[in-house]
């Protein structure tokens, strides 16, 4: 079979990224321009600033990606683009870019759901095995997905309010930790003990999650201790908070693994870089004899390699978009 080269494009939040992936698994080149430093001083991503940075960077990133790959646009088989969900202004820059390239070079356009991309980040580490359960955890998403084969998704549950990564960042903010605070909470948690009592949110038999109550509980606790004139032990609070998050995530995920009788579990999304969460799943999967994969740090956060990998399987399934493809801020993974 002829080799298939997919150009992936990702611009759904604050990363402008292009990547070329061969046959869904072999990364030829990936370039990511991140805007973390731009948004840091605002305490989070500012959508209009993100959109402005995307259009400023886009041709530089594309050029570098093609140069590193030593591949010409003419040799690309198809273009895979994150059309949603995400920040609409950011997505639009990537979508218009993809549509323009599709028009200029007469290449097929493949619409890729951002969550599908996060799942397929694992495919760049190790070829996915099916059926599987995927837990997608990031700043914008917390979802449990069942896949019986490539590019087939069944959503089992999701967060009813805040995404887990969003909750991490907000808790970090209360503790006076600079954005993005998630990775720092993870580090602090490893130094502390579970001394604070926090509730496990939505502790039921559904596959849904909830994190806004946990966030409020942390905020209330910090205020109460302040009123009492006591100083919060940040390490211990981080450890207590992370413990509750891990309990909530592992309980629901392992329940799904058992109910759906699958032998494969994957973690996906930026929060999959959290060492505490990774370790606990590792332990549980070893105990239950489950194949467990998580993306390398490089592929955990937003990047176009994962979009190109997912795009390859969407391409094989005949998924195509025409030039009227539009960006959407929210959309179910199908």
């Amino acid at each position, binding site marked *: 079979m002829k080799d298939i080269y997919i150009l992936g494009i990702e611009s759904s939040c604050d990363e402008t990224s292009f990547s070329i992936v061969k046959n869904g698994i072999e990364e030829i080149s990936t370039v990511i321009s991140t805007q973390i430093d731009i948004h840091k001083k605002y305490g989070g991503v500012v959508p209009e600033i993100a959109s402005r940075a995307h259009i400023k960077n886009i*041709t530089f990133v594309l*050029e570098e990606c093609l140069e590193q790959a030593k591949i010409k646009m003419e040799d690309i088989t198809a273009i895979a683009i994150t059309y949603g969900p995400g920040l609409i202004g950011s997505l639009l820059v990537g979508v*218009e*870019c993809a549509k323009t*390239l599709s028009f200029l070079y007469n290449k097929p356009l493949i619409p890729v759901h951002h969550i599908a991309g996060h799942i397929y980040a694992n495919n760049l580490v190790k070829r996915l095995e099916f059926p599987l359960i995927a837990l997608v955890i990031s700043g914008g998403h917390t979802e449990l997905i069942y896949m019986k084969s490539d590019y087939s998704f069944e959503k089992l549950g999701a967060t009813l309010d805040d995404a887990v990564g969003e909750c991490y960042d907000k808790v970090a903010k209360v503790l006076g930790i600079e954005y993005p605070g998630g990775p720092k909470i993870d580090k602090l948690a490893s130094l502390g003990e579970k001394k604070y009592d926090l509730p496990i949110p939505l502790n039921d038999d559904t596959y849904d999650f909830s994190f806004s109550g946990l966030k409020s509980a942390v905020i209330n606790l910090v205020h109460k201790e302040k009123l009492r004139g006591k100083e919060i032990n940040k390490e211990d609070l981080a450890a207590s908070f992370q413990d509750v998050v891990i309990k909530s995530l592992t309980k629901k995920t392992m329940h799904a693994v058992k109910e759906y009788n699958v032998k494969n579990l994957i973690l996906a999304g930026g929060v999959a870089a959290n060492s505490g969460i990774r370790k606990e799943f590792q332990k549980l999967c070893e105990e239950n004899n489950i194949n467990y994969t998580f993306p390398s740090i490089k592929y955990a956060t937003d990047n176009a390699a994962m979009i190109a990998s997912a795009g390859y399987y969407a391409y094989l399934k005949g998924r195509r978009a025409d030039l009227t493809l*539009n960006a959407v801020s929210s959309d179910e993974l199908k």
Partner: protein
Amino acid sequence: MKVFYIDTSSSYLYIGIVEDCKLKGSLKKEYGTNLSKYTMDEIAKLFSSLSLKPNDIDKIIVVSGPGSYTGIRIGMTIAKIYAFALQKEIITITSLDAMALSLDVDKVIVPLIDARRGFVYAGVYYKDTVLMPNQYLKLDDLCTYLDKLNKDYVFISNNSFPTLKVLPYSPDILKIVLKYQDKESINPHLVEPTYFKLTEAEENLRNSQDDN
């Protein structure tokens, strides 16, 4: 020489192809919030109706703003990628410069774009002279300025203003292209939208820094 013109800085799509002083084809259509959906498709249809391939174009003239932030980025992304990928010359002009050319009257011409909260993007032109450069300002301040000019003036806009009589804008694409096609082209990497305004977050940050 073939020139491709694109303006998506409002809720309207304006595209055209000019070849050797002739407008070969064009489209002027209001899309509202669907501009991002249809722009590229309409461009492909225009090219196909003229049996043109993307590589047949020599130059791109793109309207860089000011106007709708999202709108501007649609046309600018298309033009930037087009020029970069196929190594075409790219020229940017402002939406107000384009609007000023659509009328042929012996009066001061004032193209106007609603920037909300009593502000507008505007420029003031008389024949080939720019009396007031393109800027973001209070509509009241603009009116005061115009009254002091002591000349007849006419507003042109796609927006309506309760206190002003404005003429609707319809671009004269041929005239715009002929006037600007020899303007110096820019490296596509460096082509940027004309916003004339910081984002709200940047303004708030700047104000809080000023206060300290």
